């Protein structure tokens, strides 16, 4: 009996109440506590992953049309986009969440990734003919056609290099200047791809029409006949499912890397910089190099995600890369909790769903069921206004995010941070009390 009580104590961790002790919850909790630690750590993630991975199979059985509030569940095609944007958010989390550097131009990395895929896996450069492991195209197709799997890696590396190039001149600046410079890059790169269709007569990006079609991923005919892997996604009858599972795999890989990075020497250096840049420098952390790594790695994932979604959409178009996307990704990181991988993942899935079809669906449901015919609303039109409200409310009432990372939460609550952007504007605790600044008589006010 005493042993059982101990277990109960361990399971409910000090929040012991009579209610919990007597309930079935307590029995479940104590059973849970007997499981080995790896199982306890990984089983929720594995369960979620299983639910996510089998989504294509039970989607058809879910109710669709007029589901309360959400109207219908996202289609597989939407789910791919949702997963890819979540991947980008997890990548941005490295820059903003781990290292505390505000990046308002993450869309630039998305664009670089997408266009690298466009250059290396499409008929954009008709002047040459180069094939390397490409699938699903005829043998005499002109242009550069490299296997998408390789292109994903190349795009990620090139984007990472781009991150370093953008980072080097700007990372020594103070936080808010960094924000504005990254914003500048985020504006320059889309304009560049829009205008670079006649650089001295050379068509680099095909202007506003974008690069299309971009090759699809696949494993080629040899592997198809040998082990039954799909030869080319686009030509399979269940193409969307294949894209979905691959996107899920990329997201999982990104999350895995980010968790491992967070606990690595580099990750701890990032968090040290976020908490107190001066102290981190004094402890011997090379500030510039560490920050540049954060930038490069954040860019790496952004580039891979961008290249993948370009392949999924079979095209890269300049209109995809607006400042709004940067803010939208930032919104995911803030909503989830800066630095918290799971928080960012969940916020990413929710917000991308809202962006892809959720807001429109919610609007439809509200118009169908709540608002009268005469007062219909257009929710989707104001989506960025809604994100704006979300951002402001989060910053005011829950700056640590929905699922805060433990360390970041402590930083915010204790206010001990001295990172690049942590010092408050004014350190005057009493300044907002009424009459705080009015104590002096007029005669004692300064003249000149």
């Amino acid at each position, binding site marked *: 009996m005493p042993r059982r009580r101990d277990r109960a104590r361990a399971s409910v961790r000090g929040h012991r109440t009579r209610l919990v002790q007597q309930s079935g919850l307590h029995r479940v909790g104590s059973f849970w506590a007997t499981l080995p630690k790896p199982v306890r750590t990984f089983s929720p993630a594995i369960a979620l992953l299983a639910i996510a991975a089998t989504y294509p199979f039970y989607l058809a059985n879910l109710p669709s049309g007029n589901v309360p509030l959400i109207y219908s569940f996202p289609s597989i095609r939407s789910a791919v986009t949702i997963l890819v944007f979540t991947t980008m958010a997890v990548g941005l989390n490295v820059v903003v969440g781990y290292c505390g550097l505000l990046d308002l131009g993450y869309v630039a990395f998305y664009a670089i990734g997408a266009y690298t895929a466009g250059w290396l896996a499409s008929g954009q450069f008709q002047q040459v003919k180069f094939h390397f492991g490409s699938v699903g195209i005829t043998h005499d197709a002109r242009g550069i056609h490299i296997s998408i799997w390789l292109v994903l890696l190349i795009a990620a590396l090139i984007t990472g290099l781009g991150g370093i190039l953008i980072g080097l001149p700007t990372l020594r*600046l103070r936080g*808010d200047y960094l924000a504005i*410079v990254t914003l500048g890059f985020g*504006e*320059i790169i889309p304009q560049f791809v829009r205008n670079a269709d006649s650089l001295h007569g050379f068509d680099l990006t095909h202007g506003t029409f974008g690069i299309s079609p971009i090759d699809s991923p696949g494993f080629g005919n040899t592997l198809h006949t040998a082990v039954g892997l799909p030869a080319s996604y686009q030509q399979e009858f269940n193409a969307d499912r294949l894209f979905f599972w691959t996107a899920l795999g990329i997201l999982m890989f990104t999350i895995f890397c980010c968790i491992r990075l967070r606990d690595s020497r580099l990750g701890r250096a990032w968090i040290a910089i976020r908490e107190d840049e001066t102290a981190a420098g004094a402890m011997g952390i090379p500030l510039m190099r560490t920050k540049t790594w954060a930038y490069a790695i954040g860019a790496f994932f952004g580039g891979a995600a961008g290249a993948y979604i370009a392949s999924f959409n079979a095209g890269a178009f300049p209109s995809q890369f607006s400042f709004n996307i940067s803010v939208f990704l930032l919104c995911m990181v803030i909503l989830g909790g800066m630095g918290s991988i799971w928080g960012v993942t969940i916020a990413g899935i929710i917000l991308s769903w809202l962006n892809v079809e959720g807001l429109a669906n919610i609007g439809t449901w509200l118009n169908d069921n709540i608002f009268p015919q005469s007062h219909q609303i257009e929710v989707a039109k104001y989506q960025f206004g809604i994100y704006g409200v979300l951002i402001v409310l989060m910053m005011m009432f829950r700056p640590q995010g929905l699922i805060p990372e433990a360390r970041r939460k402590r930083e915010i609550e204790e206010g001990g941070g001295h990172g690049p952007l942590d010092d408050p504007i004014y350190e*005057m605790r009493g300044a907002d009390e009424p009459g705080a600044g009015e104590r002096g008589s007029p005669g*004692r*006010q300064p003249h000149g």
Partner: protein
Amino acid sequence: MRRRKRPAVLSVVGLGFVALFIVWLGYNLVNDPTNFFNIFLIGLTQGSVYALVALGYTLVYGILQLINFAHGDVFALTGLVASSLIVSTFNLDETSSALMIVGGLGATFLIAMVFGATVNATIELVAYRRLRNAPRLAVLITAVGMSFIVQNISLAFFDVNFRSVPSLVPDSDVFRIGGVHYSWQALFVVLVTAPVLVILRWLVQHTRQGKAMRATAQDPEASAMMGINVNRTISFTFLLAGALAGIGAVLFLVEFNVRYDTGFELGLIAFTAAVLGGIGNLYGAVLGALIIGMVQAFNEGPFPLATKSDWTRSLVFGILIAILVFRPEGLLGERTPEGA
């Protein structure tokens, strides 16, 4: 030793860019003087409008060290309100009598100023004031959020169409020397901007509230101890910035169209101008705005090597990045320990 050497190399490269630009200007002056002066006057007009917006950024940055992203959107919203005032409320068009136009425009200016000031100060009151002790990152992100909110307010009330006003100020020439001509519209912009800048200077330098502003900008804590009401001073700064944006918006309407998202890009350009001149420095903002106006005009002008309007935005942001790399304190700013 390496530490000392790098800034020197950087500034040489930076000066090199400036020298190239001046050589290019000189070449154009000799080669095509008519267009040069025409474009110069266009740049002066554009720069004046930018100056009014850039001052708003610089004033707020000076006192709160905050990039008020919402400022450009307040500008656009005010412009939209002013356009509907002119078109719908006062019913002004080219055929109205001179008295009507003068009175209507004057009233529009006044209402736009009050409106811009109110919106700007409300944003501070609602969003930024609560975060006074929060990390800077939080305030900055809130500013981005407010920018989207204001933009969507414009969208909700004025929809996605461009708004314009009839040309109330005649487009005819004030003077014409050779091929160089100067329109009344352009003169009007400069004629409004110049006194506004003088009044602003007087406000900041010589009034009690201006002194409080400067003191708060230098050291908010010490100013509070000296009996300055810091919150009121910050509100006053936002009011001032909003009023300037209001004037700028009406002047912008004289020559251009306004839409709900006009403010975003214009705000970024104006912010670049403020950084170029040295953020926090009022003269710097005006100087930076005039330079940016010139750069834009010359880039879009009929000159060799000019990249035309497709690339203006990239050019302006390129300048912004270059300034932050080569001279982060701006042209007239002071070097601070943080490096920027």
